[in-house]
């Protein structure tokens, strides 16, 4: 079955293509979508793109890009071709994600309020933990109900040349992007409603209530049975402000800034029009170092002086917990498979990407010899900042990275380049393959829950492997198909 229309001349290019087999035929679960897209004209799609852009702009769904003079508000481009994950594949992912986040929560609890068994038993070296930028001594002894230290986790998955899903990195501090999952879905249903025909797509719009539920479950023991939850934002100038406001709205709770909160006698309250009101749970979207000027950076004006002492006194829960950065340190990442085996006594369901630790002299030598074939990343950064992609880097860039690695081998890791899977993506008037990843969102309250799908990010530049929104990436609506049993039980053909 040859491809036609928008797919005219579509070439998987030797990569694993999500929608099309290497023989050039649509995969089973893409069949209906491909046929429907073939029937659309470029003109029609261009018109649909205008509708989409106008909708995003007037809704103010924007993020701020820094580094080009003053911050610029941009929309996060959503490609009109959705990504589809069949039910069986998703079950596997869901199981693997729950396993991974469960183990990471156990690991963090062990480090901060446990007896550090993972270190004593020689699974992870002590020095690696204490040298991690993300490890916060100030969080020692502060417990979180149900051990839900990663209340929201965003686990970045990629698919390699064989189509195997691998974990690229864990985001356990303030993973962002979930607002785009919901907004992309809302936009798709408005812009291209008919492409949903013939699919039973699992909904995502219960994220707000699920998040609120998880946050309520971690309210301090003895708190009001109807705990007061707030979202703490650095303010309107933060690049993710739209998302912070979005989440507060989805949950129906207050969006506060540091200056709206006061701590008195280890109790956190917010300033309302009718005086102070006690706060039980803070879903903070401020980094650890800005959270409490008493404990962390004293020059932070975004934070809440005394909030750590209130958490220590058990009067407020901070989510995600302080100090989670130690577990998404990219060097600790290399140990996560062992961490899973250690706490859960099971083999990891989702494998890592092969990773080299650069303080090990043998591994470092091996890496420095073939920098042009590897990806090198700083261990504590996120958002794609500061990384080197060997195959596309200049000699000067490689030399500079070699010097940085030799000066601070603990500060970097190297990974094999993953030939990220590609997905048909609209480029001008036709479709081309572009590299994608997937960030599913995992919620932990008294149980662990994964929102179907997640954020599919797409590297819009031809050949690029970098999908971050700050680096020219876009996104796709991500469809998890309901299993055939669910189809029949809901009375759909």
């Amino acid at each position: 079955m040859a491809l036609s229309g928008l797919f005219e001349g579509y070439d998987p290019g030797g990569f694993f293509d999500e929608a099309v087999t290497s023989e050039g035929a649509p995969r089973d679960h893409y069949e209906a979508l491909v046929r429907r897209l073939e029937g659309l004209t470029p003109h029609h799609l261009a018109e649909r793109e205008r509708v989409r852009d106008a909708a995003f702009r007037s809704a103010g769904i924007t993020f701020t890009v820094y580094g080009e003079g003053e911050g610029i508000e941009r929309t996060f481009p959503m490609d009109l071709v959705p990504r589809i994950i069949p039910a069986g594949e998703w079950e596997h992912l869901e199981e693997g994600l729950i396993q991974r986040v469960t183990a990471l929560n156990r690991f963090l609890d062990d480090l901060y309020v446990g007896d550090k068994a993972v270190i004593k038993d020689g699974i992870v070296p002590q020095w690696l933990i204490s040298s991690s930028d993300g490890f916060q001594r100030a969080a020692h002894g502060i417990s979180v109900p149900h051990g839900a230290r990663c209340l929201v986790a965003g686990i970045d998955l990629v698919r390699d040349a064989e189509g195997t899903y691998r974990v690229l990195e864990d985001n356990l501090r303030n993973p962002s992007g979930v607002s785009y999952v919901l907004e992309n879905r809302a936009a798709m249903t408005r812009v291209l409603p008919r492409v949903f025909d013939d699919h039973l797509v699992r909904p995502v719009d219960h994220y707000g209530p699920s998040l609120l539920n998880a946050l309520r479950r971690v309210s301090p023991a003895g708190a009001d049975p109807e705990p007061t939850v707030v979202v703490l934002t650095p303010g309107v100038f933060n690049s993710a402000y739209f998302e912070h406001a979005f989440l507060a709205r989805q949950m129906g709770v207050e969006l506060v800034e540091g200056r709206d909160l006061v701590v008195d006698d280890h109790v956190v309250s917010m300033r309302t029009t009718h005086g102070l009101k006690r706060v039980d749970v803070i879903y903070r979207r401020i980094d650890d170092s800005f959270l409490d000027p008493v404990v962390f950076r004293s020059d932070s004006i975004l934070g809440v002086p005394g909030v750590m002492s209130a958490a220590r006194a058990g009067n407020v829960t901070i989510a995600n917990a302080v100090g989670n950065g130690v577990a998404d340190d990219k060097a600790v990442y290399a140990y996560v498979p062992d961490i899973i085996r250690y706490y859960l006594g099971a083999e990891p369901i989702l494998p890592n990407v092969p990773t080299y630790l650069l303080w090990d002299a043998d591994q470092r030598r091996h890496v420095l010899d073939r920098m042009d074939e590897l990806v090198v990343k700083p261990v504590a950064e996120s958002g794609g900042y500061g990384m080197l992609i060997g195959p596309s880097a200049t000699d000067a860039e490689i030399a500079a990275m070699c010097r940085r690695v030799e000066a601070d081998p603990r500060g970097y890791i190297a990974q094999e380049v993953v030939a990220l899977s590609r997905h048909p993506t609209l480029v001008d008037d036709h479709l081309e393959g572009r590299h994608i990843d997937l960030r599913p969102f995992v919620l932990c309250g008294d149980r662990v829950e994964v929102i179907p799908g997640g954020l599919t990010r797409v590297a819009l530049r031809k050949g690029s492997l970098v999908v971050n929104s700050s680096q020219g990436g876009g996104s796709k609506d991500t469809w998890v198909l309901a299993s055939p049993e669910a189809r029949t039980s809901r009375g759909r053909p």
Partner: protein
Amino acid sequence: MLARHAESLFWAGRSIERAESTARMLDVTYHGLLEAMPWEAERSWMDLLKVLWLDRPFAELERGVRAATVSEFLVFDPDNPGAILSSVGQARENSRAARELISSELWEAVNSFHLELRSRNLRADVEARPHELYGFVKRSCQMIAGVAGETMPRDDGWRFLMLGWMLERAEMTCRLLDVRYSQLVTAGATGGFHHWLQTLKSASGSEAFRRRYRASMDPADVVEFLLLSRTFPRSVLFCLASAENGLARLEAGRPTLTRPQRLLGRTRSDLEFLDSHELLEGDLHVFLDQMLNGVRQVAESVALQYFRNAQEHDIHALDPYGPVLELG
């Protein structure tokens, strides 16, 4: 609700009202002058600046008082924080700061208005089709008011939005009357039909006035209508009564009045029990000045009571172990 959000909504309401009033007055001034003598122009533009309390900042720019310079200053001059473009920008920023409290429809209405205004060639619009431009601003503001009314729950957020809106409108109408009236006094003229018609149009009240007073264009009637009408939504009394009602609902169940309520009630009753003919014989300017002062004090006390957490300061000032108040 959060004190900061209350403040943002209060100012969002004020800014939208300001943009609308400015557009309406620009429209009326511009079109009124088309039928006027050339020498009247400069004075009319100067008066408009006075109504908006922008005469001094404008004079400092030394641009000469002409239709083009004043209109550009009031529509899009980046140095004028009271320009329509700046007001709408402020309304948008304040809505954004209280984004999760207002409905998505309201946010989109404000945001779209802001984006569309910015994408226009405002200089060309002011020059070539001012009526269309001011109509667009008025319609957009009215649409925002309508969307707010249809989508916002009547909670405290709504009340602060309306409080800002109504206080700004009351001030605008007072200032409009003040300037239009003082114009007559200084010119020594009786005013005449067109002068007062224009005044009414600036407050969007000429039709409502006609229905109520028919053919009359007695200055006392106009003053009475704009100050004291109980039915016209831009009269000062109507605005103050709405604001007072909102304040009362904010404090439902409280046994005593708050300071903003007392101040506003006093200002409103000074107005309500007034005789407009007496007023015209006395000094309208002095009275309007009192009104404006009253409204400003209300706004200040609202800020202290609700935005700066007067209660919080009170609580901290209270010393539970301090001297007991001796009775008798």
